[in-house]
Structure formats: structure tokens, C-alpha cells
């Protein structure tokens, strides 16, 4: 296949070369060549600017300023025009006019309209953009001390919704652009990393310090060039490469600490004992030694007021160090540019024995071979290690009692007074708890002994060749290869819940290898022509090919006889089912795009991509993704010329189709399987069964999203104030839905093109430079985005799709979310909590007991006689006297009404300060922790401090049920909380050593800084952190149970360049 392509490309190149070459016009030399010398300074600070690129317009001849801002050029035509460019400064064009000594003052750019923006298969000058493309301010984002860029992305770009699982180092961060399109399939955007499209990257693979730009393509005009995989938006990431200039060695390092933001307040020993006294009889407490009423040894509940508290959270959490060291050397001549960088990042988790580590090395080389040919490439290798217990996942997969935080919060906070021999803190189990019905396990032992290791290796190799066939026509051929090898180790020794003698598995472990290999070949031709004064055209055409292979292999065993051998003793245990899988897909694409500009006023972009995917059959393999956009630069219209403050005004309209092919690679094939669960034994001997496991969805097609976007860009006062507003509406139809099938088919689900979803939203970004003086500048950025999703159609005329949260076996069969027709996805579903049954609801009997008044609702399965004052009460919506399935309703929204960010940059002399706020408003969180820790139904299970306010006979003015006052296992609005928050996310204070001081040291620049992450949070959410979404999916957002607490990070660092 590759041969075909290269052949085709070569033929085209050949075809071109047959034509007579058009030589570029040579300027007539009227003035003799000069030797010129000049200096470049900053227009506001008047400091010399080193590293500024100086090029003679129309040639490749040029130079770079030295540390004093000085440059020299010889053999320059006297009428030459010099072009000065430098990152962060406005490009300046200076006709020489015969001068041999010049002084140039570059103006720092505020929001450059001429800045190049990375888009699909090329770059576009910002003012010429017709689509909606958001850019991350990397200078700002770099200030956040985080392991991975996605942890700092929230609130930076309007329209990008970020929800992270919890605070675990290396935990998944879910990024969704302009709302979820797909109900059951992956909604994450397509990533293009240095030109390589990746559907599901590990963002923790990338060193944030090594990222040069992040562009977010949002509307269809921008994304359609990526066709079949672009419906969820595209994030283009480019990493740093060598730049022309002297070799520059840079070091960025920081060291800091992380601390848990918010520990859950728990009951103290006295309150705990008071609760036990309520739950059980004095006999039990006496037997267990908690109270002693025998003569002479009087010990009562009251005595626990001063008892020593066992702080399990304190024992588990730690102040954890975090450090980062990035070292790079970059530089180059006019023809050769290089870059070598390395990074070490080490983040210990705030939970003992957990953390994340990354080591990375990267090299890039760009070589200009001759006037026509440029080649280059890069190689990177990254390895990451994520380790430690994951509190958010249930150890046995089904019971919430096996999540780590269950034991942390629930473990007994106090031993019987006077019991000096209690070994509660050292034992694996709490003696007072029956291990066969309650899975509490010493959490410190769990965290110390569970081995959980994700070891990942990433290799990426990219190469390219740019060949300038004609002055205006360039051929670009790129090739890339990536290999990801992941290994997951798990080992449970006898000091862990699963490996202990209290469980059935014995010492156990598993090793699994996952390998992905991808290759890519892209061939594009770009024709870029200024036809005449008014007409400019740019045409891109290309063919790309990509292939992917994925496989995994894994083995596990129980009852390992020699636990000291660790995982290498796996072969000695009782073998468990072996995992093995191989998969592959290929994609071939043809793409084209035309950009046409008339008078710098009317801009037109049209693109078309054809994608062919191996995931579909026959006629459905190929699909076409067109887009068109029109932009009108109003600013260049005469009628706006006189409005002085206005510096930019552009109206954009775009429409396009994009696709999604994220189904399993072989969804169109029927499958016959041989699973371990499909055996049968005859005569006490096992016989393997062959069973149909999947129905062929032969007609499967692409999912298609059409999107319309209307945008406005305006700038005032020479771009000191800029505003971008976008309204979009997208409709996804032919949804690739893992659709449920009626059980009569014999199958549970199959991929079908069924269902329809729409998303509609508004995005605003405002950037202002509030103060700009020589000494002091203050600029702010503000983004806000609103998105509203709507389910328009479901499987087989289904009116709603209910989703279950799998966190506890008693709750698993009750749906928690619902997607109803014409309503948003991810709505929370359950009973309306109606407070408590109070004394008024009962008739007091002569024997002192309380009998519920007739007509008061009871729950399904509950006898009226069982209901007592202080019990939880739910609203009987249909008034039939029984609270059951028919009384469930929407009790919350999983997705926010709006999200955004607010950043402030201050610079005073050499000091700089960045304050970044981020928020989410209007989303609800299901705080399932309260279903367990505001329950009071289990002996010796400690509860949240909030449970002290429970209903008690002398404390009835509350809405927290009495101990054990919840019947059955139901979700209600009681535990649905407002998850809105405002967070001072990043604070960074820096001091840059003055250039004067550094002159003699050989140091080019040096900045010291203090940075903090997650410093202050304002929220009404009562859980540990509102930025939480356990088991996140488009249908199940905002769930919290046993989350890894989010840390607050503070670091000191230095950024040094030689």
C-alpha cells in the first residue's frame, strides 16, 4: 500500500517537474550591497532583545540577534526589506532604504492577529481564520505545577469541558469539546500530536514543559479536514523543536509538596460511642469492653469524651513531595535546527504508597537540504509508572465495602477505654466485625501491601520531507510510527483483603500486557498563491493512510504458595482465565481544502475529506465529510474605518459534517466464542462450549455530526481588548450506539446506527490588557461556555435510556441516571426526598409505640408497621400510597450549565504574578458516600460528622434520618448535591533576574517562581472535592464514592536558560 502511495506521489512530482521551472524573480540590484549592523530592543522596556530572527524579505538569508540584541548582516542589497520576528512580539517589516546602521524597537504583541495558528494540515494566520479554533495560552498554562497538561486545561479554552475522575496521580481526565455526541461510545476528541492522529492517547505521556502549542479545533469547518474521527473535536498538540539561534540550554525544575485539600470530618470517639449505644444493646458494648457497669469499674459512654481518637485518615494521608526536572538544548543554524530534551517527573501521591513517575527523552532535527527540500524528524521515548491502590474501584468489583475509603472512614476510631492491649491498628481485621459479611480491612495494610503498577512505554518516531515543486506548490510527505507497551501488575499478598486468609482467593496476582502499534503516512500538496492584489488562494490536497494493531495478553493465578516470590511466583498458583486479544484497523483518506481570500475582507474555506475504514463493510466503508465557512472581516469595510477604537471585527459562519467510527474493530462480524463461562461438565469432566457471542451488524455506518457555528471576533484599542463569541448547534445522527437488543434475540446488544443527539451552546472568550506601562502590566482572560444537550432519538423507539452505576451490589440494579427524549443526557434519576417521618405522622399507642397514620406513603416492600419516627421519607408522586418505581423522577443534572476560567497576569518590573480561577456551575453530584456514612446501620462502622445531626427523639428538627432509618437501597435527592464550585486553580509568582545582573554570568535568563495548584475552593459540596466523577461516561457524570482526595500543590522552582 505504501508503495502505491509513494509511487503516486512520485508520479505527481514527476508530472510537475516536466513543466519548465519558473525561476523566482530576482530583484534588480540598483544599490551596491551593504554590510549592516543593528540592534533590536523591546519597545516598552527598552531592554535589548536577544534571539530575534532577522531575515531579508524574499530570501532565506538572515541572522539572529546576540545577547545584546545586536545583529550583523553582510552583502545586503541597499533596497532590501528586513523582517524581524520574535515570539511574543509583533512582526516588524523594515525597508533598509540604504541605511547601514539601524535600531529597531519591537512591540510586545498583545493578541496578535498575524500570529500563526496551528490548524489541521497547516497553519493559518489568526486574522484569516474562518473556523472556530481555540488556543491554549501555553505561557500561562505552563505555570501550573501538574503532571499532565489535561489537569490544567479546564477553563482555559471556551467550549472545552474537562471532568476529572478524582485526585489520583495519573487518574483519567475526560475532555469533551462542545458536549457529548455519543451516548454509549467514547466522546473524547481526536488528538493530533505532532501531526500524528491518535484516538485515545495517554495525556500523561506528554511533558507539559515540552508542549509548544495546543490548538482546539471546535467547529466543523476546522475539524472536517479530519473527517471520520473529528466529530468530537480535535486537539492539535505540537511539541517544541529547535529554533534558529545559538544553542540554548534550558532547565526548568521545581520541587514542592502536596496536601489533601479536605479530609472528611468524622465522628469523634464520644459521638461514635453514642451511636453504637443507639444501634446495639448495652450487653454487646459491655461484652466488647466498651462500657463496664459492674460495681467498681464503672465506665460509661460519657467517658469517651476525652478518649484518644485513632485518626485513620491522618495515618493514610501524607504530605507528598512532587518534583520535576526538564533539561533541553535547542538551537540551530539557518539550515539545521535541533533539539534534545529530557525530563524526569516524580509525584508521590498524598495517599501512602501511591504516585506517578515519568521519564522522557526526545530529539528532533530539521534540515534544509537545498532551496527546494527540507527534511526532518523526531524521536521520543517516554516511560511512566503509576502505582498504588485505586480507592475509586471496588476491590472485588461488586461491593462498596471493598473500596479503600470505606475502611478509612469506617474503621473504629476508638478502642475500649483502658484496653492497652488492643492491636486494632496492627491487625488486618477489626475483631468486632464479621469478615464474611463486612469487608472492612485495615486500610493502612491495604495501602501498604497492595501492589498495583501500571508501567507504560511509548515510542514515537516521525519524519517528514517538504519539497517545493514550484514557487507556490509544496509537497509534504510524512511518515510516523508509534508503539505503546503497557503492563499492568497486580499482586495481593497475605496482608491484603483479597490475599488474606479471610478471603477465598489466597495470595494472588496478575500480569497483563497491552500493546498498540500504529503507523501513518500522509502526503499533501499545498498550493499557495497571491493571484493579484485582491485575490489570494491556498489549496491543499492529500492522501493519508493509517494502520493500527492492538493486542493484549494476560495471566492471573490464585493461591500462590510462596508469597515472598511476588509476581514471579505466579506460575506456582492455581491458574485463572487467561486473557488474549488481537485487533487491527486501517484507515485510508483523501482530503482537500481551499482557502480563498478576497481583498482581505471576504474569506472562504471549503474542505472535503473522504475516509475509508476497515471497521465497516462494502459500501459503508467510505464516507465523505464536507465543510464550508465564510468569514467577513468587517474591520476592512469602509463603514467601520472611522470607528477608531475598533481594531478588529470579523464575522464567521460555518457548517460541516464530521464523523465518528469508534466502534469495536469487528462489530460487523458475527462472533463465535469459547469463554471459560460457557463450559459444561459431563461425567464430572469439563467440556468446552462454543457459543455465539455477537451478532453481525453488517450495515454499520459512520456516525455523522453536522454542526453550524456562528462566531464573532472583535478587538478594540489595537487589540488590547478582544472578544470572541461563538454560537453552535450540532446534531449527531445515525448514532453508533451499543444498542440493547430484545433478549429474545439471544444477544444483549449490538452496534447499530440508531439514535440522535443534539448539542447547542454559546462560548465567550474575553481578553483585556488592563494596564500596560513600562513598569506594570495587567492583563486578564475570561472564558465561559454554555452547553445544552438533548436526546432526540433512542433505540427501537425507546423513550428513555436508564443507566446504572456499578459501585455496590445492593444498588447496582437500581438505575441512577436517565436519558429521556427531548431532555439532556446524564440526568439523575430517583426519589424525591421528603424529609423524615416525624411524630406528627404517627398515632401514639397506649403502649408508647408509634403507628403510622393511614394514608402516609410507605416504600415498596415495607410494612407500615415497620416505619418509625425519624425514618427517611420519599415523595409518593402518583399518590398510590406506595413509593416504588413509578415515583422515580429526575432529581438532578449531571452536566453543568456553564463552566469557565478567569486568569489574571500581572507584571511589575521583574516580578510576575498569575492568578487563574476556574469554575463549574449548575451540575449536581451524587454523593454516594453519604449512603454509607450517614446511615448508622452497621455496628462499629464510623460515620461522617454530619451524621451527628441525625434524628433522635430529642432532636427532631433535622433532615438526616435516624440511625438505620433508611429502608432498602434507593437513590434519592437527599444525596444529590450542588456540585458548583469556583476554584483558585493556579497561582504563580515569579521573579526574573534582571538581564544586567546576568550579563557576566553567561546565564541568558533566570526566573524563580512559587506556584500553587488548587489553592482555594468555594463550593457548597460536602464531599471531599467537587471536581470528581467516578466511573464517568456521557450517561453517568458526577458520581462520587470513595474518591482519591484531590491535593493542593505548592512548589518552588527555577527556569534557567544558558
Amino acid at each position, binding site marked *: 500500500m505504501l508503495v502505491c502511495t509513494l509511487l503516486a506521489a512520485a508520479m505527481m512530482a514527476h508530472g510537475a517537474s516536466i513543466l519548465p521551472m519558473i525561476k523566482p524573480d530576482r530583484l534588480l540590484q540598483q544599490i551596491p550591497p551593504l554590510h549592516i549592523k543593528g540592534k533590536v530592543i523591546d519597545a516598552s522596556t527598552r531592554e535589548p532583545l536577544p534571539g530575534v530572527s532577522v531575515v531579508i524579505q524574499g530570501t532565506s538569508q538572515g541572522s539572529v540577534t546576540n545577547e545584546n540584541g545586536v545583529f550583523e548582516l553582510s552583502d545586503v542589497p541597499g533596497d532590501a526589506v528586513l523582517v524581524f520576528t520574535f515570539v511574543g512580539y509583533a512582526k516588524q517589516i523594515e525597508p533598509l532604504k540604504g541605511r547601514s546602521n539601524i535600531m529597531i524597537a519591537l512591540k510586545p504583541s498583545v493578541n496578535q492577529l498575524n500570529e500563526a495558528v496551528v490548524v489541521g494540515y497547516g497553519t493559518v494566520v489568526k486574522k484569516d481564520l474562518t473556523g472556530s479554533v481555540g488556543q491554549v495560552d501555553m505561557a500561562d498554562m505552563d505555570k501550573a505545577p501538574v503532571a499532565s497538561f489535561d489537569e490544567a486545561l479546564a477553563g482555559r479554552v471556551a467550549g472545552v469541558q474537562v471532568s476529572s475522575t478524582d485526585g489520583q496521580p495519573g487518574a483519567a481526565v475526560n475532555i469533551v469539546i462542545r458536549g457529548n455526541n455519543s451516548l454509549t461510545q467514547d466522546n473524547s476528541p481526536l488528538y493530533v500530536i505532532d501531526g500524528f492522529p491518535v484516538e485515545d492517547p495517554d495525556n500523561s505521556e506528554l511533558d507539559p514543559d515540552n508542549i509548544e502549542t495546543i490548538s482546539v479545533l471546535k467547529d466543523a469547518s476546522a475539524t472536517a479536514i479530519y473527517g471520520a474521527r473529528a466529530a468530537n473535536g480535535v486537539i492539535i498538540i505540537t511539541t517544541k523543536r529547535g529554533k534558529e539561534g545559538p544553542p540554548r540550554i534550558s532547565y526548568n525544575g521545581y520541587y514542592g509538596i502536596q496536601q489533601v485539600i479536605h479530609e472528611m470530618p468524622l465522628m469523634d470517639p464520644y459521638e461514635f460511642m453514642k451511636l453504637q449505644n443507639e444501634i446495639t444493646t448495652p450487653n454487646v458494648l459491655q461484652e466488647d469492653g466498651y462500657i463496664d457497669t459492674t460495681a467498681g469499674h464503672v465506665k460509661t459512654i460519657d467517658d469517651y469524651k476525652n478518649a484518644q481518637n485513632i485518626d485513620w485518615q491522618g495515618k493514610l494521608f501524607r504530605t507528598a513531595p512532587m518534583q520535576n526536572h526538564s533539561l533541553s538544548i535547542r538551537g540551530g543554524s539557518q539550515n539545521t535546527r535541533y533539539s534534545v530534551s529530557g525530563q524526569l517527573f516524580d509525584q508521590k501521591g498524598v495517599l501512602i504508597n501511591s504516585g506517578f513517575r515519568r521519564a522522557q527523552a526526545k530529539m528532533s532535527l530539521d534540515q534544509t537540504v537545498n532551496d527546494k527540500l527540507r527534511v526532518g524528524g523526531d524521536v521520543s521515548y517516554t516511560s511512566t509508572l503509576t502505582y498504588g491502590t485505586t480507592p475509586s474501584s471496588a476491590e472485588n468489583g461488586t461491593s462498596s465495602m471493598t473500596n479503600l475509603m470505606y475502611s478509612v472512614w469506617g474503621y473504629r476510631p476508638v478502642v475500649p477505654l483502658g484496653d492497652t492491649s488492643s492491636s486494632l491498628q496492627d491487625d488486618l481485621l477489626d475483631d468486632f466485625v464479621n469478615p464474611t459479611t463486612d469487608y472492612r480491612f485495615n486500610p493502612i495494610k491495604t495501602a501498604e501491601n497492595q501492589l498495583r503498577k501500571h508501567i507504560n512505554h511509548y515510542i514515537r518516531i516521525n519524519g517528514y520531507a517538504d519539497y517545493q515543486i514550484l514557487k507556490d506548490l509544496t509537497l509534504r510527505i510524512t511518515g510516523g510510527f508509534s508503539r505503546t507497551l503497557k503492563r499492568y501488575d497486580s499482586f495481593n499478598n497475605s496482608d491484603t483483603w483479597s490475599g488474606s486468609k479471610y478471603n477465598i482467593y489466597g495470595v494472588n496476582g496478575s500480569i497483563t500486557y497491552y500493546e498498540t502499534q500504529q503507523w501513518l503516512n500522509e502526503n499533501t500538496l499545498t498550493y499557495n498563491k497571491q493571484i493579484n492584489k485582491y485575490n489570494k488562494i491556498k489549496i491543499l490536497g492529500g492522501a493519508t493512510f493509517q494502520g493500527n494493531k492492538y493486542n493484549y495478553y494476560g495471566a492471573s493465578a*490464585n493461591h500462590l504458595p510462596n508469597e515472598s516470590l511476588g509476581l514471579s511466583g505466579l506460575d506456582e498458583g492455581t491458574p485463572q482465565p487467561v486473557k488474549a486479544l488481537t485487533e487491527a484497523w486501517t484507515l485510508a483518506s483523501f482530503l482537500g481544502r481551499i482557502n480563498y481570500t478576497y481583498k482581505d475582507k471576504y474569506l472562504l474555506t471549503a474542505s472535503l475529506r*473522504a475516509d475509508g475504514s476497515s471497521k465497516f463493510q462494502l459500501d459503508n466503508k467510505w464516507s465523505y465529510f464536507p465543510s464550508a465557512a465564510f468569514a467577513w472581516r468587517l474591520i476592512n469595510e469602509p463603514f467601520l474605518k472611522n470607528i477608531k477604537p475598533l481594531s478588529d471585527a470579523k464575522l464567521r459562519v460555518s457548517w460541516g459534517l464530521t464523523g465518528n467510527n469508534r466502534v469495536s474493530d469487528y462489530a460487523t462480524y458475527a462472533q463465535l466464542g469459547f469463554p471459560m463461562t460457557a463450559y*459444561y461438565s459431563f461425567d464430572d469432566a*469439563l467440556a468446552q462450549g462454543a457459543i455465539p457471542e455477537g451478532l453481525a451488524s453488517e450495515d454499520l455506518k459512520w456516525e455523522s455530526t453536522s454542526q453550524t457555528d456562528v462566531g464573532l471576533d472583535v478587538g478594540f484599542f489595537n487589540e488590547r481588548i478582544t472578544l470572541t463569541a461563538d454560537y453552535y448547534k450540532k446534531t449527531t445522527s445515525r448514532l453508533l450506539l451499543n444498542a440493547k437488543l*430484545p433478549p*429474545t434475540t439471544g444477544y444483549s446488544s449490538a*452496534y447499530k446506527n440508531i439514535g440522535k443527539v443534539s448539542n447547542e451552546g454559546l462560548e465567550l472568550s474575553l481578553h483585556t490588557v488592563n494596564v500596560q506601562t513600562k513598569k506594570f502590566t495587567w492583563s486578564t482572560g475570561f472564558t465561559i461556555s454554555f452547553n445544552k444537550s438533548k436526546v432526540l432519538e433512542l433505540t427501537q423507539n425507546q423513550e428513555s435510556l436508564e443507566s446504572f452505576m456499578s459501585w455496590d451490589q445492593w444498588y447496582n440494579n437500581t438505575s441512577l441516571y436517565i436519558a429521556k427524549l427531548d431532555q439532556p443526557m446524564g440526568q439523575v434519576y430517583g426519589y424525591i426526598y421528603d424529609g423524615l417521618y416525624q411524630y406528627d405522622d404517627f398515632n401514639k399507642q397506649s403502649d408508647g409505640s408509634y403507628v403510622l397514620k393511614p394514608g402516609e406513603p410507605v416504600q415498596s416492600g415495607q410494612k407500615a408497621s415497620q416505619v418509625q419516627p425519624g425514618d427517611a421519607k420519599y415523595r409518593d408522586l402518583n399518590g398510590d400510597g406506595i413509593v416504588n418505581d413509578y415515583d422515580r423522577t429526575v432529581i438532578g443534572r449531571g452536566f453543568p450549565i456553564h463552566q469557565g476560567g478567569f486568569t489574571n497576569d500581572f507584571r511589575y518590573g521583574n516580578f510576575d504574578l498569575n492568578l487563574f480561577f476556574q469554575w463549574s456551575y449548575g451540575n449536581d453530584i451524587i454523593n454516594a458516600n453519604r449512603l454509607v456514612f450517614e446511615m448508622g446501620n452497621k455496628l462499629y462502622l464510623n460515620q461522617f460528622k454530619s451524621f451527628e445531626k441525625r434524628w433522635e427523639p430529642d432532636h427532631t428538627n433535622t433532615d438526616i434520618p435516624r440511625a438505620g432509618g433508611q429502608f432498602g437501597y434507593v437513590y434519592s435527592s437527599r444525596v444529590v448535591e450542588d456540585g458548583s464550585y469556583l476554584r483558585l486553580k493556579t497561582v504563580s509568582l515569579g521573579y526574573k533576574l534582571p538581564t544586567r545582573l546576568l550579563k557576566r554570568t553567561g546565564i541568558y535568563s533566570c526566573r524563580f517562581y512559587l506556584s500553587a495548584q488548587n489553592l482555594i475552593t468555594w463550593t457548597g459540596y460536602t464531599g471531599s472535592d467537587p471536581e470528581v466523577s467516578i466511573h464517568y461516561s456521557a450517561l453517568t457524570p458526577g458520581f462520587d464514592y470513595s474518591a482519591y482526595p484531590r491535593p493542593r500543590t505548592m512548589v518552588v522552582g527555577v527556569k534557567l536558560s544558558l
Partner: protein
Amino acid sequence: MKRIILDKNIKSASSNGERTAEGFAAPVYHGSFGSNRRDFIGVMATLMIGIGCKKFLTTKPTDFVSPVNYFKNASEVNSALNGVYNVVGLEAMWGSQIPIRQNIGTDESFLSYTKWPTGPFFYNFDPSDPYVLNTWRNCYIGIERANLLLANLEGADMDSSEKGAVRGQALFLRAFYYYTLVQYYGDVPLKLTPTSSVNNVSIASTPAKDVYDQILSDMEEAEGLVQTASEIGYGGRISKSTVRGILARVCLTMAGNPLKDTAKFQDALEWSSKVIDSGEHLLNPDYTQFYINFCQDLYDVKDSIWEVELYGNNNDANRQAGRHGNENGISHKPSDFANIGYAYGFNSTTWKLYHLFDDIDLRRDWSIAPFSYSDKTSYKKKDYSDSSIVQRSCGKFRREYELDKPMNKNYTPINFPMLRYSDVLLMFAEAENEINGPSQQAYDKINMVRERGYGKLLTGATNPEEAHLRTGLSKDDFRKAIQDERARELCFEGLRKHDLIRWGIFVDAMKQTAEDFGAHAPASYAYAMTAAENVSAKHVLYPKPALELSLNKALKQNPGW
């Protein structure tokens, strides 16, 4: 090669952006250049890419087999058959839940676990109940597997009698799954071919009577194809006796409620006679040994004609163990559960069942354990007081006889009876009574069962007549006697509920059970009384599962639900 056409045509086709024969759009760039020659080269290049693309974009699955090229020989066909059998042994089916949880709430037994306030065992459930769904789902999974095998069997290269035996087993199992469906849900969709498409999946119900006709015809065909019990030699595989015995059961069901096709009593009599007359079957003289055999994977096809075979204890990679002896065992919560069998004792006796036995009926204290195990490290027994009746749980499956070590807390290799010879004898007696009244034949069969139950078949036993049923009963009294005898003999084996339904006495029996709880059980058993009180006429059927109804628009809900 049709693609090589005139230059001109290609040009117009590609510049219109139409699909070429290979189905991709011509790249848009090439039309923008001037010369014809370059166009030609561009098109040629595109075509070459196109030819390659078709192959390039085909990735054959490397991870699984396609049903299209399976079922080629005996070994593949037998693997597919094993998959059809597999459903019988699932935990949600006879591996545990059908007998232990779903059929437990009757006049002979109840589920003594209070943590679930809802579920079919408490007669407090709705169409979205997981048990309602799973029974339905698993039956249709089994049916789909059988349909796929039956549709592909003909082409297999194998011995024709062996092929016939496979066909017979697949037909029988499919019919058995339909029999289960029709008993639980009434009219159900009847599918006799594999599902062919992910679309058009709505299927209407077939009237129960027609489903029964299909069951009879499939089972009758199977009867001529499968091997005899003696040829097979163990209880897990479908034998002629199994087919005949189950046919007798099906016919009795048809003769009773709701079809009331009383002509089927004659068929029931004939099918049960065929089992009896085959000479292959005999009661195991020792009632307790009969059950110990299940715990130890010993086979006695003379008496245990068909049993669901469970294997291992899920400590190993194979997940083929069940929960017999665990959920329906004698309550025991040892800490050392790797060596001492852990059991929940969820299946408990009603006051009625206990009192159906007389004091010398050995079956009573075996079926209803008069003790629980109290010790955490051994099988030490602690007797119940004489007044504690409903506290007692099923004692038929005792983990102390289990051999596989280390044990699993929750999963056991204990097999479970699907068809017993004593059941066949009682079915014979029942059918005979309905047709000819309480004849000597009928008395003989019931007395055979009773003699064994009273230990009168053991060597050295005396006075066999002590076990005999009172003579001179009227037809109605004999019917009543059969009903009671079936409870005594077959209690806790998942048959009672559908027996009561076909006799048309289910709702009344549950009313009486509720009263019994009120009169004879401690207050803490109020939930069990509530469960029995909940029973109403609609409970003779499950509702159709909500999931099926929401996806299969051709289906109608059962009356009352």
C-alpha cells in the same frame, strides 16, 4: 478492470467528485491544475491507490471464529452442543437461582433472607425485576445457541447416528427452555431459527398452546434420537429416559392449569410408563445416599435420571460451580471456610411441610435439617428446639460431604436433580388416578416412593407396610395424597410452585401459608407472612420483562402486570 475507461470519462467522473467503482472520492486537488497530461497521471495514481485500498481496508478478525465457517465436524458440533447445555448450569438458572430463589416461595418453603425487600421470592416485584429478566434472557440465549446449532448441523462431516444424537439433545434442550418460558411467562415469542439481523427484532408472542405443541413435537423427535440412560451412564446428558420423563411432566402441565387439556393425562401416563418399563430405573434404597451422591459427583442414573452437572468450586479458572449446598445448605458460618463448608441456609421449611411428615418418615429430618452447624471450625451440630420449625432449613445438600478442597465460600461442585425416578413414579400415579382412579397401579407407584422414604428398602428393614398410603382413598383424596407426597419427596427441588399452579391451588395454598406463618411462626418471620400474603392471581405468571417490552414493540404484557 472495468475501471480503465476513457480518459475523458474518468475526468468528468472525478471532477464531479462521484464515487469511482472502488467507492472513494477522487482527490479534489488534481482537477485544479492545467494540463491534461498531469490530470491523466493524477487519475492513474488515484486508481492505483484505489485498487490497493480495497485490500488495504479489509482487516479480517484475528481474535475469534466466525459462525459461518464453524460446525464442520463432530468436535466442533459437540462444542456448540456443550454451549447449549451450558445454560442449564448457569447460576441464574438451575446452577442456583431457579430452584433456590425463584421457585422457593410456596407452601413448602420460603426464602429466609430479609436483606432484599423486593423480588419474586417475596412476591413483591415488577417487570423490571432482574430475576424476571434473567430467566427470560437465559432461556432465549439457550434457544439461540440451539437454533444456531440446528441450522448448521446438517453440513457437518460426522457419523449420522452421532449427528442424530446431537440433534436430539439440541431439540430437547430448546424445547425444555421453551417449556420453562411458557410456564413462567405464558405466551412467548417462538423462534426456531437463529437471529439473522440486528434490525427487525420485534417478535410477537405465540399462544402458549402452540408453544406446547412445538415442545411436544421437538421432544418426541428427540426421544427417537438420543441414547438410553444406560448407554450414557451418567446423569448430565439427555437420555431417552430424560426425554420421556420430561415429556410426562410437560403433559401433566398441559393437562392442568391453564390449558386444561385433560387428554394429556393419557400421554403423561404413557411417557412415564415408558420410563418405568424400560427396566433401566430403580430407586436408590437409601434416601440420604441419593443426595450425598450429588455432593460427591457420584452418578446413579437408575434413580437420578437427569441432573444439572456442576463442576469445581470457582477457585480455578473454570467458572462452572453452582451454589447448591451454599445458599440452600444448612446454615453454617465458619471462619475456616476453605475446609468447612460455608452455607447461608436461605431455604427454609414452612410449618406445613414439616407437619406433612409423620415421625417415622426418614425423609423429614434429612430434607429439613433439625439442626444448624454452630461451630466456626467444625461441623458441630446444634439442634433446634422442638418448637422451632420455620427456623429449619433445607438439609438435602450438605457441604460436609463435599470432597473438593480447598472449598469456596460461596460456590460448590454439588450437582442438582432435574428429573428423578421417584418423580416419574409419582407422575405415573397422578396420571393413572386422573384417568382410572386410585388403581392398584397408582397405589403401587406411590408406595414404592414411600417405602424408600421410610427406609423400607434398606437391607434388614421390616414392616414395609408402615410406609404404605392408606388404602381405599377416593379419587380426590388420592389426588390430595399425591400432592402431599410430591411435597414430601421433592421439596426444595424447585418443582412445587409450578405443581401448585397446574393444580390450580397456588393462590389458595399461599393464603394458607400466610395464615400458618401468623399462627405458628415468631414475629420476626412477619416478612415471610407478608410475602405469602402478597400472592394474587396474577402471580401464576411472571410479567414479561420490562427490557424486552421496551425493545420488542410486538410484545404484550401479561394480564395483571
